[in-house]
């Protein structure tokens, strides 16, 4: 045996060799120990972290993105909705030639192919090609017939009314999360709850081991119903735009409230933006000034001072004040009136807007009472409207005599447009301050009402008698001799007040020559259906609220009163002015939409005269659809249960008053819609 002979020439292991082999053995054991130590570190110390990473890939990706809820106006007109749009992705590992595929896809989708190619090379199993493509683009990609291409439905936010109420609604980012406005503050409700499924997905994105039935409905976001009336909102925005442009002003705001309920019927700002393509607008355009910005309001505050002094019997309606011929020294300061006046009653002080008169009334009231008055009218506090960045304003205690004087005519304090409108609404509502609100209902995808806001009294500020007396005084403001004759209407009685405030110069820390001009009014004065506030920031042509803001008030009021069915205050000879809309030649999508809406409304008005409507048949509808129908018919839906409508009360077809509560009973689960 040759190999055995070979072996004879070899030697047995020496001691030295034994040592070296044993040493190597020790090294191997140490290495194994090291491996075990690393495993301990990963599986004991880092377990939670690593498990979290792992679950991220197979659990979170299983979440079905909920469809974002709609935002509709008080009549169900869609202001924001979500539509499913295709997004194209690819599994690059399935492409036979990534370079070629990138070139083809780049050409079809108008993308840089090199960038696509890089993305394909970097990704293993998944890469977006283009998100939120048009139907045409999707079809063109399909026509290429490439393997490994997938289409994912992604919801995209769409604002059918474009700029309309954009500041209130806000907007979302590309990932459909709210960035501003109600979209931000109701983010949680609108987003809904993405349902985490009991199951996993594999790396190819397929669902595995899914337990339970698909439940597509409950995961979708809730919808918001606003108190906003789009028709009115449109009229408000148009009137405000005109006023701002005519006065060559930098900005403007307008608020329309229903004084009886506190509902915000419209809320407008200028400049504005289109939430569908927000990139084109500058930062100023996004600001919801009417809610966020506190400014020195000026003479509009005089009405609160006089109401409070009357209420607390410091003065009577016939108390006369010496208005010092337009110049009155308070300490080292001098208070001026625009025009010199002699003796004035409270009515006169309001009519001609005498600063000296108001200051003298405030003197009678005293420092504490003045501050208390303003606070009672809702100033210095937020209403909690639910919009981001709501301002609260400042009502500082007037230590100096001059501060007491200036605060009586709205300088040295600050308030938001919303607060001023709400304060006047309290006067219009027989002295009761209502909490302003914007969102009337939040209804989830099953039709269940999550939030149901009702008119809320904050407090009685003054007695009905005092309130009525002040309103009567304010009617003289628009009559001959008043500061706002331009707000006068033939058909409706108007009570209101102008304000022309000096703006604080933030750099020089004094008053600048810039002005904020405003007009706040209620109409019809005998039974106010609306409080309308117009604020024009830095007007250049004229500075007085009676000149630059009052016409916008009138324009809005004239369109609104027939729309809400307010009875005319005075019978008019049949020479009514032509509707203004025919004079506007340009017709944007918004205009068209609103005009259609206006026609729709007039039709409803015809059928159901005197504010009565026919109850629609909502049986068999899903909760959400039933709500929409009832709201469109100006009825108040009240839902019980979930599922589809099985009964309604009062019955379909019966004639009821507008705003009547319709109780709708729902039952049964909605059938899972096949997706």
């Amino acid at each position, binding site marked *: 045996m040759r190999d*055995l002979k070979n072996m004879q020439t*070899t030697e047995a292991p020496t001691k030295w060799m034994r040592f*070296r082999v*044993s040493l190597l053995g020790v090294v191997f*054991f140490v290495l194994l120990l090291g491996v075990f130590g690393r*495993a301990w570190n990963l*599986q004991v110390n880092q377990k939670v972290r690593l498990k979290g990473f*792992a679950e991220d890939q197979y659990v979170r990706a299983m979440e079905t993105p909920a469809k974002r809820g709609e935002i509709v106006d008080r009549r169900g007109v869609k202001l924001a909705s979500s539509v499913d749009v295709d997004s194209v992705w690819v599994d690059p590992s399935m492409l036979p030639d990534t370079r070629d595929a990138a070139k083809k896809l780049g050409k079809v989708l108008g993308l840089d192919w090199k960038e696509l190619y890089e993305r394909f090379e970097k990704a293993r199993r998944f890469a977006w090609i283009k998100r939120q493509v048009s139907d045409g683009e999707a079809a063109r990609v399909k026509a290429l017939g490439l393997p490994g291409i997938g289409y994912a439905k992604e919801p995209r936010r769409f604002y059918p009314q474009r700029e309309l109420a954009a500041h209130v609604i806000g907007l979302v980012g590309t990932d459909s999360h709210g960035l501003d406005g109600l979209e931000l503050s109701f983010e949680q409700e609108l987003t809904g709850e993405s349902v985490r499924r009991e199951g996993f997905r594999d790396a190819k994105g397929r669902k595995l081991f899914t337990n339970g039935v698909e439940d597509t409905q409950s995961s979708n976001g809730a919808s918001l119903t606003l108190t906003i009336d789009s028709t009115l909102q449109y009229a408000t925005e148009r009137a405000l735009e005109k006023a701002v442009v005519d006065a060559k002003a930098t900005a403007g705001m307008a608020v329309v409230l229903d004084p009886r309920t506190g509902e915000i019927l419209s809320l407008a700002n200028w400049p504005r933006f289109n939430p569908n393509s927000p990139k084109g607008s500058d930062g100023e355009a996004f600001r919801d000034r009417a809610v966020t910005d506190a400014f020195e309001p000026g003479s509009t505050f005089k009405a609160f001072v006089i109401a409070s002094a009357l209420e607390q019997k410091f003065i009577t309606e016939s108390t006369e004040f010496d208005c010092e011929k337009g110049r009155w020294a308070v300490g080292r300061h001098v208070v001026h009136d625009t025009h010199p006046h002699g003796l004035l009653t409270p009515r006169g002080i309001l009519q001609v807007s005498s600063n000296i008169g108001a200051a003298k009334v405030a003197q009678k009231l005293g420092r504490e009472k003045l501050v208390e008055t303003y606070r009672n009218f809702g100033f210095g506090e937020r209403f909690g409207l639910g919009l981001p960045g709501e301002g609260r304003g400042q009502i500082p205690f007037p230590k100096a005599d001059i501060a007491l004087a200036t605060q009586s005519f709205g300088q040295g304090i600050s308030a938001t447009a919303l607060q001023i409108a709400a304060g006047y609404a309290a006067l219009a509502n027989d002295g009761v301050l209502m909490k302003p609100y914007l969102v009337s209902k939040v209804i989830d995808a099953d039709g269940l009402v999550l939030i149901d806001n009702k008119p809320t009294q904050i407090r009685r500020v003054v007695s009905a008698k005092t309130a009525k007396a002040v309103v009567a005084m304010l009617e003289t403001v628009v009559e001959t001799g008043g500061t706002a004759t331009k707000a006068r209407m033939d058909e409706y009685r108007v009570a209101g007040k102008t304000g022309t405030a000096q703006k604080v110069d933030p750099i020089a820390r004094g008053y600048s020559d810039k002005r904020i001009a405003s007009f706040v009014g209620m109409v019809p004065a005998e039974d106010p259906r609306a409080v309308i506030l117009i604020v024009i920031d830095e007007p250049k042509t004229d500075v007085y609220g009676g000149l630059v803001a009052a016409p916008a008030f009138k324009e809005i009021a004239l369109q609104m009163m027939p729309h809400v069915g307010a009875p005319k205050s005075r019978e008019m000879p049949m020479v009514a002015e032509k509707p203004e809309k025919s004079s506007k030649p340009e017709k944007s999508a918004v205009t068209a939409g609103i005009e259609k809406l206006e026609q729709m409304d007039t039709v409803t008005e015809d059928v159901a005269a005197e504010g009565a409507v026919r109850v629609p048949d909502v049986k068999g509808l899903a909760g959400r659809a039933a709500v929409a129908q009832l709201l469109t018919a100006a009825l108040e839906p009240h839902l019980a249960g979930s599922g589809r409508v099985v009964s309604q009360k009062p019955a379909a077809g019966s004639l009821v008053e507008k705003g009547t509560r319709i109780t709708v009973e729902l039952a049964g689960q909605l059938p899972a819609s096949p997706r």
Partner: protein
Amino acid sequence: MSERRPSYDPLLLTAVLGLVGFGLVMVYSASAITAQDKLGDSFFFLKRQAVAAGLGLFGMAVAMKLGYRRMARLAYPLLVLAIIMLVAVLIPGLGTTVGGAKRWLRVPGVSIQPAEIAKVAWVIYLAYSLAKKREKVKSFSIGFVPHLGLAGVLVALCMLEPDFGSSVSLLFLMFVMLFAAGARLSYIVGMVLAAIPFAYIAIASSPYRMKRITAFLDPWANRQGSGYQVAESLMSIGSGGLSGLGLGDGRQKLFFLPEAHTDFIFAIIGEELGLLGVLFLIGLYAIVIWRGLRAALNASEAFGTYLGLGIVSLISFQAVTNMAVAMGVVPTKGLTLPFISYGGSSLIMLMGSAGLLLSISATAETGARRKAKPSRTDRPAMPSGAMEPA
């Protein structure tokens, strides 16, 4: 010559068979879903691995029956065969390119990985050569240069595939065995230092190796790209925790972890069986190393010692490296987990080697007995431990 029935080390045999059995279970668990998805047969990889295990058992039995000593005669033929195969795999048509590397030799019906054969052939050759050269191993020109030259040829062939992991294995085996044979430490250290620039060039010149390094340095930063495998592997192992998710319940093998049944099978073990499973696996390797080296030390002649050491080194190097790669401790190499990973060439060659190790253990047992009772020796031709040359 009437040979007594040799007594193989039962513990070593149990550990090796335990590893193979464990491997079959894990290959099935790791591959079933992928196999079902891609090939429509969840048992596809298990079946092939079982066949390889059967062939491996046969090879193991043959190696035990023949005895390791006959391997001395096969040292050169095996080495030549390995070199021929390493060359053949580079020839287009004979070698199959998978993932940019020509590592498989396609013979009708089967595909062979020449590098796996080369590693075992290299161990046998080194053991033979070192045992033959005895004291001359200490000399630079006789003990060092020829081995280095041959290693250069093998490494060059492996790098042409390219197969960095096998190249490193071959060099590691050479250094370990030269060290045991008494080569001067200064030569070995010097060689390792001299190899560093070459290794650097090899890594830096190839973008995919560079990627592996960056992926290793920060797998999370490159999670979607080069660090994907390592990151997924870390997540798998970490998810396992102490006792694992349960056999077959791993989630990472749902296509998240590529090569779950081959190079990254350790990640599935960690995920499904947890730290306890890892401990079990490491324990089996520890037994193989302990009993293997014990057999090597008790071998009656240097060839057995070197061969035993070489085989143990091969197994432990691959095991430690593979597990370290899966846990992100060293960069990705492409080495299998011995006896566990799916792959016929590797399994058959390793089981054959285990057969040789067992054969060494058997003669070691008899050798040990001989030492205790020299009179009972029935192999006069064999030199005993006492017969060392002066």
